[in-house]
């Protein structure tokens, strides 16, 4: 997640990035590019989504929320997995950078979860007639938000940063072990208590331009998350360095 996908040939240099000072410099050089890329991609995605993509025959214009809703939901889940991966690496190999990356990613993940929930609600009101329905996807997303909040709560409550990192890693990993079970149980629960209001088949049938808009927005979210996570990691590195010097 933190590495550019472009220079496979220079794999050996990646290892150097695990050292916080090197990473600090590297992140400082990379994040403006990523931020710019995010802006460009978002502009392109919105242009495709609002001007090129046709009006849906069943839902009308309101389906255009999808261009924010789906990428945000993807990011919320993906960021949790990546943060847990980094936290696990930090716990097992005691690398110094990994817990920082996990901590830098989690708030962004939580923000995307909130956005996914919120846009889902704004989409649900006109299509289903209710702000909230107890549907499997919405419920899982809500539980994901709780998992994020649990992690952020534990990490911010513990003063000692080493203990905070490790305790947070345990919380994240417990969540990751549990996510498939939670997802399955919620799925099961919602099929048993099938409400009559939801019809997923009312979702728009994708045209190429819709798909392109969604993918562009998803890439924009990626670039945004990377940029924000890099900047936050820089902050964390600085703050840690000050802590150590006290």
């Amino acid at each position, binding site marked *: 997640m933190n590495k550019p996908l472009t220079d496979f040939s220079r794999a050996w240099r990646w290892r150097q990035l695990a050292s916080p*000072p090197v990473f*600090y410099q590297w992140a400082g050089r990379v994040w403006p590019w990523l931020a710019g890329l995010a802006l460009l991609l978002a502009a392109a995605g919105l242009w495709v989504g609002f001007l090129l993509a046709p009006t849906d025959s069943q839902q*009308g*214009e*309101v389906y*255009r*929320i999808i261009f*924010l*809703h789906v990428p*945000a939901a993807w990011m919320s889940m993906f960021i949790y997995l990546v943060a847990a991966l980094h936290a696990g690496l930090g716990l097992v190999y005691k690398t110094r950078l990994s817990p920082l990356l996990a901590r830098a990613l989690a*708030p*962004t993940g939580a*923000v995307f979860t*909130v*956005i996914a929930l*919120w*846009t889902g609600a*704004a*989409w649900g*009101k*006109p299509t289903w007639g209710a702000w909230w329905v107890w549907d499997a996807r919405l419920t899982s997303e809500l539980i994901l938000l709780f998992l994020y909040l649990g992690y952020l709560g534990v990490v911010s409550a513990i003063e000692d940063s080493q203990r905070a990192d490790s305790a947070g890693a345990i919380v994240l990993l417990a969540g990751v072990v549990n996510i498939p079970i939670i997802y399955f149980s919620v799925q099961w629960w919602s099929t048993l208590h099938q409400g009559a209001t939801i019809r997923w088949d009312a979702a728009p049938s994708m045209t190429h331009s819709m798909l392109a808009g969604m993918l562009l927005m998803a890439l924009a979210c990626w670039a*945004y998350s990377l940029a*924000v996570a890099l*900047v*936050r990691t*820089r*902050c964390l*590195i*600085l*703050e840690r*360095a*000050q802590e150590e*010097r006290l």
Partner: protein
Amino acid sequence: MQNHAFFIALAYGLGALALVAEMLWLWRRSQSALARAQEEGRP
């Protein structure tokens, strides 16, 4: 149909607001971290 625009604006507006709030918060945090780092010398 016309209130669909309202919901779209609601979704995108508050979504953008959340992202901007996150960026502002992060900006202030990095400024204060940098300022403190410069008080004590380079990292």
